[in-house]
C-alpha cells in the first residue's frame, strides 16, 4: 500500500506487516528483506518508510503497573493517548510528552522525544528504566542504563535501526489535577524571547510560538507559553465545579481531504500569524487550561497535515548550541523571513542537558521547528539553511527530516560513526533500514 510520514512527503509503496506476539514477529523476521518499524507514522519524513514496514498496531498491551511508584511496563505499540486515558484518572502523567499524543511508546523511544519540559526533565530516555529489543536474528535482549547499555543508548533515539523495541518500562509522574496553569508572555523580538526563556528556567514547561514572517526590529517576535501542573488546592481557587482529574470530552474536528495548494499562500499565512500574535492583548496573560489544550492543541484537528494539500509539507527543526544560539538564530530567522516561505506554527524552545543516547537530537541550546509546504524553492532554502546550521554547529532532528544530505548528517551528528558501528554490530545482516537511513548512509 502507499505509505508516507506525517508530512505526506515522500510517498512510497510498501508492504505492511503486523504482529500480535513476539513469536509472530520472530517468524516475520526470518524472511529476507529490509524492514523498518513504524508506530503511528507521525515522524514527518521518511524515517518510518521502507519496502517492508512492521507496524506495531496490534502490539499494544499494558503488562504491569506499580501503583506506588508509578512504574508502568507496556508493549511498544501503545499510544500515549491510551496511557493518558488510563492513568490520568488515577493521578499519573507522562514524564515527557511531545506535541501530539498520537504516537506510540516505541516511537517515543526511537525518536527520543522531547517536550516543553526538556530544560528540567530531559528527553524521554531519561525516564526509561528498561526495555526489551528484538534484534534482526530474533534474539530478545533486555537492556537498561546499567545492563547492555550500548544497545540501550543506541536504541534511544536510534530511529528503529538497532532492532524492534518490544516492551518498555518507565516512570510516570504524580499529578493532582489534569489542568495546567498557563502564562502567555508577549515578546517583541528574538532577543526578548530569549530573555524570557532564561527568566522562565524555573518553570516546568516552556515553549514559544514565533512569527517567522516578521522582519526588521520585529524579527522573532513571539508568544512564550509557560506552565505548571495545577494542584488540587490551586484548582479549587479557579473553579470549584471542575473535577480535578477528569476533563470535559473535547470535540474534535477533522480535515476530510487534501486541501488545494493555493490555500496556504503568503497572505493567508501572514494573516494567521498576525491574528495569532494579536490574540494576546496584555504582556502577560494567565489561565488554567486542561492538559489537551496545553500539550496537544493540534490533536483536536484530526488530519491537520492535509491542509498543506497533496504535495505535503516538510518540517525543518534544528538545534544550535547555546554559545551560538543567539547569533545563529538571528541569522537563520532572517533567511527564513526573507524567503517568505515559512508557514505558521514555528516553535522555539530552550533545551537543557541531554542524556548519553548516541543519536538523540536535543542538546543544550535553542531549537526552532517550522513547517514548509513542499515546493522546489523550499529545497533551495533548505540548502542555505543547512549551510548555516552547520556553520553554527547545530543539527537537524531526524524525526522531522525528509531531505538532509548524508554530508550534513555526518558533519552535524558528532557520534554518527559510533552509532553506525553499534548498529551494524547489533544488526549484522542489515535487516533494519529505512529510506532515511540509506539516504544518510547510516
Amino acid at each position, binding site marked *: 500500500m502507499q505509505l508516507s510520514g506525517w508530512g505526506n512527503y515522500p510517498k512510497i509503496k510498501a508492504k505492511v506487516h*503486523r504482529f*500480535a*506476539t513476539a513469536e509472530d514477529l520472530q517468524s516475520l523476521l526470518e524472511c529476507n528483506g529490509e524492514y523498518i518499524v513504524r508506530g503511528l507514522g507521525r515522524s514527518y519524513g521518511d524515517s518510518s518508510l521502507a519496502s517492508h514496514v512492521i507496524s506495531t498496531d496490534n502490539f499494544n*498491551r*499494558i*503488562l*504491569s*503497573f506499580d501503583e506506588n511508584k508509578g512504574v508502568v511496563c507496556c*508493549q511498544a505499540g501503545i499510544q500515549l493517548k*491510551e496511557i493518558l486515558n*488510563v492513568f490520568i484518572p488515577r493521578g499519573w502523567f507522562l514524564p515527557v510528552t511531545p506535541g501530539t499524543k498520537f504516537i506510540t511508546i516505541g516511537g517515543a523511544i526511537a525518536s527520543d522525544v522531547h517536550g516543553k519540559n526538556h530544560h528540567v526533565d530531559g528527553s524521554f530516555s531519561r525516564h526509561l528504566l528498561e526495555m526489551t529489543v528484538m534484534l534482526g536474528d530474533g534474539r530478545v535482549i533486555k537492556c537498561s542504563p546499567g545492563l547492555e547499555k550500548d544497545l540501550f543508548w543506541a536504541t534511544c533515539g536510534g530511529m528503529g535501526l538497532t532492532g524492534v523495541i518490544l516492551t518498555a518500562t518507565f516512570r510516570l509522574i504524580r499529578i493532582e489535577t489534569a489542568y495546567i496553569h498557563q502564562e502567555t508572555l508577549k515578546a517583541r523580538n528574538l532577543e526578548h524571547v530569549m530573555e524570557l526563556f532564561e527568566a522562565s528556567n524555573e518553570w516546568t514547561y516552556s515553549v514559544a510560538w514565533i512569527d517567522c514572517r516578521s522582519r526588521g526590529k520585529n524579527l522573532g517576535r513571539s508568544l512564550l507559553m509557560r506552565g505548571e501542573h495545577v494542584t488540587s488546592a490551586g484548582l479549587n481557587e479557579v473553579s470549584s465545579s471542575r473535577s480535578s482529574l477528569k476533563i470535559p470530552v473535547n470535540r474534535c474536528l477533522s480535515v476530510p481531504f487534501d486541501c488545494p495548494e493555493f490555500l496556504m499562500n503568503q497572505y493567508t499565512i501572514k494573516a494567521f500569524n498576525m491574528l495569532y500574535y494579536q490574540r494576546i492583548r496584555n504582556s502577560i496573560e494567565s489561565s488554567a487550561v486542561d492538559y489537551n489544550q496545553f500539550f496537544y492543541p493540534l490533536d483536536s484537528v484530526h488530519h491537520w497535515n492535509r491542509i498543506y494539500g497533496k504535495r505535503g509539507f516538510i518540517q525543518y527543526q534544528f538545534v544550535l548550541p547555546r554559545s551560538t544560539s543567539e547569533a545563529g538564530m538571528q541569522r537563520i530567522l532572517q533567511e527564513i523571513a526573507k524567503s517568505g516561505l515559512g508557514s505558521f506554527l514555528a516553535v522555539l524552545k530552550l533545551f537543557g542537558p541531554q542524556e548519553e543516547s548516541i543519536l538523540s537530537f536535543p542538546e543544550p541550546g535553542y531549537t526552532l521547528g517550522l513547517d514548509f509546504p513542499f515546493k522546489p524553492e523550499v529545497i533551495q532554502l533548505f540548502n542555505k539553511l543547512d549551510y548555516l546550521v552547520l556553520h553554527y554547529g547545530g543539527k537537524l532532528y531526524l524525526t522531522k527530516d525528509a531531505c538532509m544530505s548524508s554530508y550534513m548528517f555526518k558533519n552535524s551528528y558528532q557520534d554518527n560513526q559510533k552509532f553506525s558501528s553499534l548498529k551494524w554490530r547489533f544488526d549484522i545482516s542489515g535487516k533494519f533500514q529505512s529510506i532515511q537511513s540509506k539516504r544518510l548512509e547510516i
Partner: protein
Amino acid sequence: MQTILILGANSDIAKALAHEYAEHGYHLCLAVRNSERLDEDVHDLKIRYQVEVQSLEFDAEDYASHEDFYHKLSPKPHGVIWAIGYLGDQQQAQVDFEHAEMIVRANYLGAISILNIVANDLESRKSGFIVGISSVAGDRGRQSNYIYGSAKAGLTAYLAGLRNRLYSSNVHVLTVKPGYVYTKMSSHLNLPPKLTAQPADVAKDIFQAQQKLKNILYTKWYWNFIMMIVKLIPEGIFKKLSL
C-alpha cells in the same frame, strides 16, 4: 458488576469486544483453545479497566467437554458472546470433505453444542443475553465461500430460533452479521478499504446493539443495504454472476 463470557476470545473482534465491555465496567471471562496465548491480554485488560478478567481453556469442537466447562464457570455469566469463526479454504472444502466438515464443526456445530447449554441456564435464570457473531456470508450462498456461508446460515437460523424461544424468559439474543473487517481471518484477502471496518468499530456497534436489545445487526451499517440488494437479485440472474 456482571460478567461476560466470550467464546473464542483470541479473535480480533472478540478482543475488541473485551475492551468495549471492560470499558463499560463488565468483568470478563475469556475462553480460548490455548489460554496461555491470552496472558498478556488479561494483564492489559485488568490494568486498563480495573475489572476482573479470567481466561479459560475451551475447545469448541470438543462437544463432550462443554457441559463440564459451563458447569465450572464461577460466577455464571450474565451475557455470552459466541465469537468463533473459521473461514477455511473454499476450494479445498469442495474436494476434501474433512476440510468441509471442519468448517461446519467450527462455525456451526460447536455453537449449537455450547449455546444449548448456555440457553438452558439463562432460561432458568430468566435473564441475560446471547450475542452470536454470524456473517453476511450466511445471507446468500455464493460460489466463493458457500461452505463457510452455509455454516453461518445455519448459525443465523439457530440464533433466530433461540431468540424466539428465549423471548418469554427475558433472555435476549442478538445476531451479528459483520461485513468486511480487518482481522487475522481476512488478512490474506484483498479487501476494499472503503467497505472494510476496524474491529474496534465493529465492537462498538455490537455493544450498542446489545444494550439496545436489537435483534439483528449488520456492521458496519451499510451492509444492511448491500445485503438487501444481494438478496433481492433473482436467482436466475444471481446464478450467472461470479461472486
